[in-house]
């Protein structure tokens, strides 16, 4: 039930209703609580991942189980401390986390933080590219569908949208790869760049790890072209999923806002049709996209795992799959914690941005 408090009649023309006034402070408090909630979320995730990983096997057995006698294997497990009670290991791990020590990966001996920054930048690049695809495909097509509502174009676009978000990411990836790389040969099969460009880009001073950015900074146009050619298919494979969602969302929202009273009210004031559409209908219709974008980050990171594997895109998702098979707890936990932080933070930031640009949230 919504209980609207209207201003009491005696001061209907007076000050703002009391409840509205407090909402400014309420927003601040809301932001604070949202922020604080990030921590328990991450804690729960860490705990879940920790126990799930530990009860399904240790990395030493995975690596050596087929070649070492039982006693030697046990010795190694003991030496690594994996035979201790799981709670002891858990609190030890929590203690490490509390001091900001994420440890070193077990299967390839690297600092987790360094591993995260290395692969994180690749995933970031993929996500940015995919988001661009989603926005550039989803929003314009959504607008077209809204304006051609119930016409042929709309029907086609709606089917397209359903295909976009109903097609599993890995399948879309394979399909794109088979068509454009293997069959037509237009685009590279996999990876983030050809070996020479990759060598050039990784040997730069202080690389960002985002290849097109590094290529731009170093003015290496050949590498840039190569990087972009490699980026197309993964970005499309991952971005289409979200593009489909954006398409539907934009279509529904714009159809909704086009039919709103305020559009008719604007019309009754003599505002031009063009302006009614671009200002009155689009702005309120497109603001929710920002919120959905925040939610889509989680979907994208999930999809990134599959896309990265398909396209040999060496990012967090790609590594996550590898570390999972190798039962590298430390690495998996590191990646999951980072992903959780990213999802929590982006949602948090997106909510704040939405609150700042959407007066409906702010007031």
């Amino acid at each position, binding site marked *: 039930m919504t209980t*609207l408090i209207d201003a*009491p009649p005696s001061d209907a023309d007076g000050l*703002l*209703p009391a*409840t509205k006034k407090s909402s400014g*402070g309420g927003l601040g408090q809301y932001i604070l609580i*949202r922020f604080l909630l990030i921590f328990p979320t991450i804690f729960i995730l860490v705990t879940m991942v920790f126990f799930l990983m530990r009860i399904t096997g240790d990395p030493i057995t995975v690596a050596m189980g087929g070649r070492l006698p039982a006693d030697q294997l046990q010795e190694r497990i003991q030496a690594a401390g994996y035979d201790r009670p799981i709670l002891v290991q858990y609190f030890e791990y929590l203690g490490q986390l509390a001091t900001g020590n994420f440890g070193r990966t077990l299967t390839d001996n690297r600092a987790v933080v360094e591993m995260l920054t290395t692969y994180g930048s690749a995933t970031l690049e993929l996500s940015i590219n995919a988001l661009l695809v989603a926005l550039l495909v989803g929003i314009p097509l959504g607008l077209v569908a809204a304006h051609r509502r119930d016409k042929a174009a709309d029907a086609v676009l709606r089917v397209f949208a359903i295909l976009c978000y109903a097609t599993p990411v890995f399948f879309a990836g394979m399909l794109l790869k088979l068509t454009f790389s293997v069959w037509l040969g237009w685009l590279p099969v996999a990876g983030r760049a050809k070996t020479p460009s990759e060598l050039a880009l990784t040997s730069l001073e202080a690389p960002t790890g985002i290849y097109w950015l590094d290529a731009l900074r170093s003015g290496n146009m050949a590498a840039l072209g190569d990087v972009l050619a490699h980026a197309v298919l993964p970005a499309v494979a991952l971005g289409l999923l979200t593009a489909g969602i954006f398409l539907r969302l934009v279509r529904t929202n714009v159809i909704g806002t086009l039919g709103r009273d*305020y559009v008719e009210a604007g019309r009754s004031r*003599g*505002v031009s049709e063009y302006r009614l559409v671009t200002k009155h209908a689009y702005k309120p219709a497109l603001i929710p996209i920002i919120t959905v974008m925040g939610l889509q980050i989680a979907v994208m990171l999930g999809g990134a795992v599959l896309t990265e594997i398909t396209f040999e895109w060496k990012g967090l998702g790609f590594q996550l799959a590898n570390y999972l098979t190798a039962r590298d707890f430390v690495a998996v936990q590191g990646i999951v914690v980072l992903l959780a932080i990213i999802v929590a933070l982006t949602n948090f930031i997106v909510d704040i941005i939405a609150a700042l640009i959407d007066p409906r949230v702010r007031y």
Partner: protein
Amino acid sequence: MTVNIDPLDAGHSGDGELDGGRPVLDIDHLQVTFATDGGPVHAVKDVSLEVRKGEVLAIVGESGSGKTVTAKTILGLLPETASSSGAVVINGADVISVSAARLRQIRGRDVAMVFQEPSTALNPVFTVGWQIAEGIRAHAGRESGKRVSAKEAKSRAIEALRKVGIPDPEHRVNYYPQQFSGGQKQRVVIAAALALNPGLIVADEPTTALDVTVQAEILELLRDLRDKYGTSIVLITHNMGVVADLADRVVVMYQGDVVEEAPARTLFAEPRQDYTRKLLAAVPHLGHNSASEGLTSRAHQDEDVLVEANNLTIEYPGRLGTPAFKAVDRVSFTLSRGEVFGLVGESGSGKTTIGRAIAGLNRTTGGSLKVLGYEMLNLRERTFKPLRKDIGFVFQDPAASFNPQLTIGECIAEPMVIHTRPSPAQVRKRVGELLESVQLPASYAARYPHELSGGQRQRASLARALSLNPRLLIADEPTSALDVSVQAKVLELFKDIQQEFEFACLFISHDLAVVDILSSWVGVLYKGRLVEQGIGSHIMGNPQHDYTKRLIASLPVPDPEEQARRREQHRALLGI
């Protein structure tokens, strides 16, 4: 372009000639037809009318009368599926035949519109100043070839806001719509309409979405506009009280035709047409037909108490970071068998919350609420469930409370099936009886909710509430979505059934007159507090609490002369 100027007909006009006799608006033989899947629908069959400068013309009618379509035609706002013929002439231009560009010029400058729901007529993502200025600049640029600077447009927006009585407009011009209360929002909508000083304002149900006390202020504002600026107003409404309060002349429409046209006082005093007479008779009139007429003490004082609230408090937890909101604050009352307790209040007063709490749909958070002897504080669904069959509930919007997938018969039978598991034959028989008692043909059991009219649905809703012979019925605004004539019939029916079945009833409404017709005992809620309760006719005739006084004073009665008197009498009380 056909300009059709009617010869003046003196008898036609209430206020005689103004402005050289040329009407501000002249509608001549207007016909509007909608193309639908089910064939053409003639929404407006043949309407001719005119509005003079400084005149308020009310177009009244029930749903389907064509009044809103007529209003939209005046601004050329009909959808593409509509085709219209005839002429709608404003300042010499026929909006039906002019070009789109010319139409855009007319809109806002020559005629503007005020909408029913101010919260949806304003775009939530732009400031009110921006929206008002937008209309100003839309015209300035195009017509005079001279652009109006943003600054100038804003200062004119401030001026418009000042005109409609928004305090501190320099500051509030930068507010977003949702920062205003409902009444203020409607003022903003009116300000937007006034921005270019159009000679004519079409107000489509401008107060229907507002509380009655706010309605009084908006009506006063519209009256002011006419008096001060000579603005003509076409007032579209179903509310005869509003008509009586504001209109100079009235056009009564029924099914796309004009039934009667007369100066307001004449129409109310001597309606010529049957339809008009019936319509007027159906309008609840405060003080007429009171259920508590002549009572001196409470009819059901403390005999067989079914509901007892004692300092009942209901809080809604605040959203993250906001304090809890007290919807109901220390309310005490009793409701006995056979009694109808009318609960009156404006939006946000807590009346619906109380109703839902009694039905076990809302949790109570403090004090005591005993329903059929069961303490609702810390309610447990398992122990309360057996009592549910003794409580019926009728909702405001019957369309929303019926499952569209089920037939009316299945909907009505649903509570029975849940609580008593009857045989199919028993169900059929009972549903037939119930439909008969709410005066619906038994064959309606096989129909689906959307096949029924609003009034029929509300009858079916009543039948469903009564299906288990409840001892207690909660009716939350059961008639406020209905047309007056339908409302009158449903109220009549309701009264009969209540007397026949003798259930206790909590009747919730914002409409004092409706409450008075049904309830002998009335309580007035204001911001969660029960500020006054007593015998209906006593409260209506001699209110004690300031708020009750204001509430009664705000309610326009369907009689222009009486209403004018009341208005003068209560001017101080209403703060207008």
